[in-house]
């Protein structure tokens, strides 16, 4: 609902938009929440527009460039849905990976300051170092899968972790696990070495 209401930080919006691109159920759910928004808007007490508002609007229309009716075909030359493609400016091959220790690599994507989002690459069979959360974390699997204490998350799945969870996701054997992870607090790695690295890598 936060995505429909437009109140999520940009980083979370990216994960949600990317997931919706992969999940019809959630796309349908979004439509339902958008409908709620529409009804809330209808209930708002009408506030009079300026006297020349309609004329001014017609002027805006006359000056606007014409909009193409047909949607552009999605830029799928790889595994990244369009919204993610835009933020990476390319697909998986274009990602500029930086190692963060334990075999894991990441690329932080540029979004507003209230949250952060990164691409993570976890080699098959590797565990992401034990980390706690200061806030909420959304992790969307783009390739491969990982297993957490509770569940298995495959391509297209999103894990929602709140501040109580201290978890150690392990990538499944067979292929690298590529994820899009957004969080609104700095990740806290609980092992000594990872915490040291944290300061340098900005996690």
């Amino acid at each position, binding site marked *: *609902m*936060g995505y*429909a*209401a*437009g*109140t*999520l*930080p*940009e980083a*979370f*919006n*990216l994960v949600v*938009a*990317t997931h*919706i691109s992969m999940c*019809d*159920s959630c*796309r*349908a*759910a979004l*439509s*339902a929440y*958008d*409908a*709620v*928004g*529409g*009804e*809330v*808007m*209808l*209930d*708002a007490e*009408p*506030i009079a*527009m*300026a006297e020349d*508002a*309609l004329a*001014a*609007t*017609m002027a*805006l*229309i006359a000056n*606007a460039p*014409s*909009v193409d*009716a*047909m*949607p*552009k*075909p*999605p830029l799928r030359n790889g595994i990244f*849905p*369009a*919204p*993610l493609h*835009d933020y990476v400016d390319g697909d998986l091959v274009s990602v500029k990976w930086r190692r963060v220790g334990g075999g894991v690599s990441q690329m932080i994507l540029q979004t*507003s300051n209230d949250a952060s989002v990164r691409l993570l690459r976890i080699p098959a069979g590797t565990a992401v170092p034990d980390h706690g959360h200061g806030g*909420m974390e959304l992790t969307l699997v783009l390739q491969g899968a990982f297993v957490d204490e509770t569940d298995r998350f495959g391509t297209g799945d999103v894990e929602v972790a709140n501040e109580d969870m201290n978890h150690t996701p392990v990538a499944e054997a067979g292929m690298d696990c590529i994820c899009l992870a957004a969080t609104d607090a700095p990740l806290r790695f609980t092992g000594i070495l990872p915490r040291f690295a944290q300061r340098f890598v900005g996690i």
Partner: protein
Amino acid sequence: MLLETPTPPKADAPPAVPPYKGQDVRAFYKTGARRVTGEQSTKRMAWVVQVTAVRDHQDKAAFAELFAYFAPRVKSFLMKSGASPDMAEECTQEVMATLWNKAKMFDPTKASVSTWIFTIARNRKIDILRKQRRPEPEDLPWGPEAEPDQSEAIVLQQETEKLGQALAALPSEQRKLIERAYYGELSHSEIAAETGLPLGTIKSRIRLALDRLRHAMK
């Protein structure tokens, strides 16, 4: 449609918009669709007809009616979301202009006019008030159907009407909480997805429509 995708394109319909069946609201009833009852549903279908008139004939009278109804509500919504009166005025004019410019993209089988206008207003709101980029889900590989199924459009409009009524019928505290969520006053951890609203029907309808279209596209 000409698409550069790996799957073969669907039977080509030219981009030019074919005549929409029935300018008259009553014509919807005659197509054999379920009987529409109630003044509210008539109003919603009238909006669909008006958007269609804008889309097909650049009908200024129809646009003026939509403007008269929606602009004051969009303005109010924006002000409740934190915009100053001047900013809300300007932003509302832009939203209504977008309605005109993007009328071709409106699909009455997927959303009520009120829902569609809300999404335009919400996106503008984020752009202007939060000054943020908003990632949108990938466009579906097919555009709005050139000839939307009338009965599906009517049903969707009715479902949305029911949703509006359910919202009005909620206990005041619960309704206010939902309103606050959409005005941007709640943090994401404060927003609960449980609204007490009958969202299941709309979700399943749209889900079924998506499944049907994906299946048809194969």
